[in-house]
């Protein structure tokens, strides 16, 4: 689903949750702790509709979206040789999103 067709309310809710999550977790190192924050769990709970928004956010700024993307989609395009490399992992997910038509090419 292209991000342009996403409803305004979904977009606004995502932005609000994302801002809360980022503000509360930038100083944390354990992705388990980072992803247990309520706002992050709420984003996962928004389901497949939110994936284009996460990918667009990932395109503008690498962050710990990989856990949410894998939890929602059941996929993981990050190969072992780049695991832990934030920039390369983000690129792998963005390529996956473009292949799936979830992100502008």
């Amino acid at each position, binding site marked *: 689903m292209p991000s342009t067709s996403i409803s305004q309310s979904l977009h606004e809710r995502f932005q609000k949750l994302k801002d809360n999550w980022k503000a509360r*977790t*930038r*100083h944390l*190192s*354990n*992705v*388990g*702790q980072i992803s247990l924050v309520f706002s992050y769990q709420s984003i996962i709970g928004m389901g497949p509709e939110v994936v284009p928004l996460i990918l667009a956010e990932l395109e503008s700024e690498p962050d710990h979206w990989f856990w949410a993307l894998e939890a929602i989609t059941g996929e993981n395009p990050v190969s072992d040789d780049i695991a832990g490399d*934030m920039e390369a992992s983000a690129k792998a997910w963005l390529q996956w999103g473009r292949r799936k038509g979830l992100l502008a090419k």
Partner: protein
Amino acid sequence: MNLFDLFPNLTVGNHEITSERTIKYNCIAWAARSTDRWWQPGVHWPIRSSQEDLGVGDLVLAFKSLGYDESPEGRFEVGFEKLAIYGSGLMYTHVARQLPDGRWTSKLGQLEDITHSTPEALEHSDYGEVVQFMKRPVHPDQDR
């Protein structure tokens, strides 16, 4: 939020910022002297692991694989390098590495690296408290 909001024990006098912000690496990587990966169980970790290995004991095992053993305290000892492992509940939250002058260095998530005078400077925050010290002998050719 600034560092003083995030870490109530930090003061102007007990820490200094020593790097730019970056998401390339985290405190675990920094303690292990790696600056090109975010170290996380099940993703990039020195021993076989799963994404659920988030406990203090899992982190202790990881650093044991790098030559550290448990230490009863974090007092500076000539000839040893020490780590302070922080935990909140059962989950590990942070690691700080002791410097040759007895102070400590930490990477704060995706924020900056800092030097802090004591491990306690980062306690009573989302990092919880120091729950384990570890140490290993310093090798003569080791980059401190």
